[in-house]
């Protein structure tokens, strides 16, 4: 028989499969895909994946699990499902738009788990977090410079470790790891210079497994492998052991005139919520928000422009709630106007010893709130009250006047009024705003620009305030705010207290002809 006709009678499908087995280069296609290159190799990958033999499908699936950090389910689906392939393609392309790339296909899996289908253009988020774009005169930091800055951040975090023994161990280990490479500690500018001139040292640091563990423990589970990137994907386990997807975006830029570094960033993740009827759902939240702004760069419109740029992102990517830590001196006070303490998030930050003491009460929101008030909020509040009153009273020269103010501040406010609020707080029934409002009408205290209480005649005294404000400043606490339309309108109302629209619009230079 004529072999040509024999060849012609082989079905089209089988012919293509033969080509597939002869091979397009699978690993090459995956590498191209990760960098957002969707040319020939990737096209062939997608075309042939549906035609693979069972054997090859298994082999390639195993490759994806072993080398690309994919789960078995994702690996299988990726080789068969055109829609998932398109999602991965879009994610990779979007990252390429921001000069980023996937480190593994497993990162695409995390992104697919985190975002709804159709919401793959995450470069919109990455671009919105660019300090260079948001503020004037800044130069973006990239790659090794970002890695160096992150190591310096890591060093700073050591100061916040609660157990001195653990703090000492971590500090010594980091110092030793750097010394091995002939480097001083991470916050030394000479160290940063040395790392930049020899980036291989950064790779060597990355290979230190224990250092990786310390880095993850101090920087919210992030990985040194992504130290030089502006976006990072990883899984985080929640209390029930469930894996939740996390995307972390953070960008740095430097003011060349002052060398001060600005950074913008936040994390998007899913949280399991138990509805009143006992069913569960996943909600998308933002947390670990970083907005560190160079003083000079912050000029006329950047603040509102930055917040406005977050609004469409909240809408588009379906972010339902935001978690913020208020602990800057004045932040602790301002946030009390917007929200109350979020008890479950605060419980998550408790040390193991505290959690043991709290015990089963952790599940009772009122009792947990009372515990946190008693151990984490009120002691510092009381100390701050005493310091503020002390500084103020000390500045009064006239003894009669001083006695009068002592009566007012100590007897009436600190002992009587605060006593009532403390009772409420220890029953788990006080809001942060109750504390912040203490002595609202007596604005006798003065603060410098860093939020420290100073005597009224001190030339550094820039801002005035009342006792509750002075006492609450600098106390760290977590606030959760919903990000629905109504909730965002609600935050504005709380901050502007039902301000007349006309006045608002006039401030904008817009006049409406109303009524």
């Amino acid at each position, binding site marked *: 028989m004529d072999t040509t006709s024999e060849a012609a009678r082989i079905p089209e499908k089988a012919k293509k499969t033969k080509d597939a087995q002869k091979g397009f280069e699978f690993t090459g296609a995956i590498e191209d895909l990760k960098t957002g290159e969707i040319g020939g190799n990737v096209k062939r990958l997608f075309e042939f994946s549906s035609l693979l033999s069972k054997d090859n499908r298994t082999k390639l699936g195993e490759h994806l699990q072993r080398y690309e950090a994919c789960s078995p389910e994702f690996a299988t689906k990726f080789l068969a499902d055109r829609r998932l392939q398109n999602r991965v393609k879009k994610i990779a392309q979007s990252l390429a738009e921001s000069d980023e790339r996937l480190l593994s296909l497993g990162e695409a899996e995390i992104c697919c788990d985190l975002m709804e289908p159709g919401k793959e253009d995450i470069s919109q988020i990455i671009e919105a977090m660019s300090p260079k774009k948001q503020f004037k005169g800044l130069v973006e930091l990239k790659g090794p410079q970002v890695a160096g800055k992150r190591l310096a951040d890591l060093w700073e975090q050591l100061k916040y470790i609660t157990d001195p023994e653990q703090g000492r161990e971590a500090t010594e280990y980091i110092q030793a790891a750097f010394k091995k490479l002939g480097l001083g500690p991470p916050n030394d500018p000479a160290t940063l210079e040395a790392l930049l001139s020899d980036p291989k040292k950064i790779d060597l640091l990355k290979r230190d497994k224990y250092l990786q563990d310390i880095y993850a423990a101090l920087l919210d589970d992030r990985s040194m492998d992504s130290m030089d990137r502006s976006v990072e994907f990883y899984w985080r386990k929640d209390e029930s052991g469930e894996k939740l997807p996390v995307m972390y975006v953070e960008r740095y830029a430097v003011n060349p005139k002052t060398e001060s570094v600005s950074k913008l960033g936040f994390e998007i993740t899913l949280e399991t919520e138990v509805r009143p009827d006992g069913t569960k759902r996943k909600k998308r939240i933002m947390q670990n928000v970083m907005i560190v702004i160079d003083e000079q760069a912050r000029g006329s419109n950047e603040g509102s422009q930055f917040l406005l740029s977050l609004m469409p992102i909240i809408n588009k990517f379906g972010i339902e709630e935001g978690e913020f830590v208020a602990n800057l001196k004045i*932040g602790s006070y301002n946030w009390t106007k917007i929200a109350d303490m979020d008890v479950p998030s605060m419980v998550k930050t408790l040390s193991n010893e505290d959690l043991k003491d709290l015990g089963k009460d952790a599940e009772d929101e009122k009792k947990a709130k009372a515990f946190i008030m008693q151990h984490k909020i009120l002691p510092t509040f009381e100390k701050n009250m005493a310091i503020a009153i002390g500084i103020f009273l000390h500045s009064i020269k006239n003894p009669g006047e001083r006695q009068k103010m002592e009566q007012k501040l100590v007897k009436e406010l600190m002992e009587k009024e605060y006593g009532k609020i403390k009772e409420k707080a220890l029953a788990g029934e006080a809001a942060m705003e109750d504390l912040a409002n203490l002595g609202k009408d007596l604005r006798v205290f003065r603060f410098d620009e860093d939020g420290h209480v100073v005597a009224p005649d001190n030339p550094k005294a820039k801002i005035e305030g009342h006792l509750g404000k002075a006492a609450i400043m600098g106390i760290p606490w977590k606030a959760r705010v919903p990000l629905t339309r109504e909730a965002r309108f609600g935050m504005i109302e709380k901050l502007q207290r039902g301000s007349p629209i006309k006045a608002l619009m006039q401030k904008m230079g817009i006049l409406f002809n109303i009524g």
Partner: protein
Amino acid sequence: MKINKNLTSQLGRNADQPGKGSDFAFYDWLQGTDKQPTLPKIFLWLLDDLKEENDPAEVKKVLDLWQQSTDINEFKNRMALLEKIMPPHHPFHNLKNEYK
């Protein structure tokens, strides 16, 4: 590995420097008490965004919020504003009579 840390926050000027970082200016800027009209700008954006809301229940939540947080005259002004700027088939137009 779990390392217990005190809560930190990185919001504002000098936020990443311990002991510093109070940033009154940041919060003035955030809440619009400074010279820049931050809050009005966000309010305007939210008004424009409200046009996209199809669910009457969600629109009602905003109207209820305003009714609680503003005085009678201001509420009337805001309703008049919505009357002007909400598109013809917006749920607002079916709800507005409940607030007369």
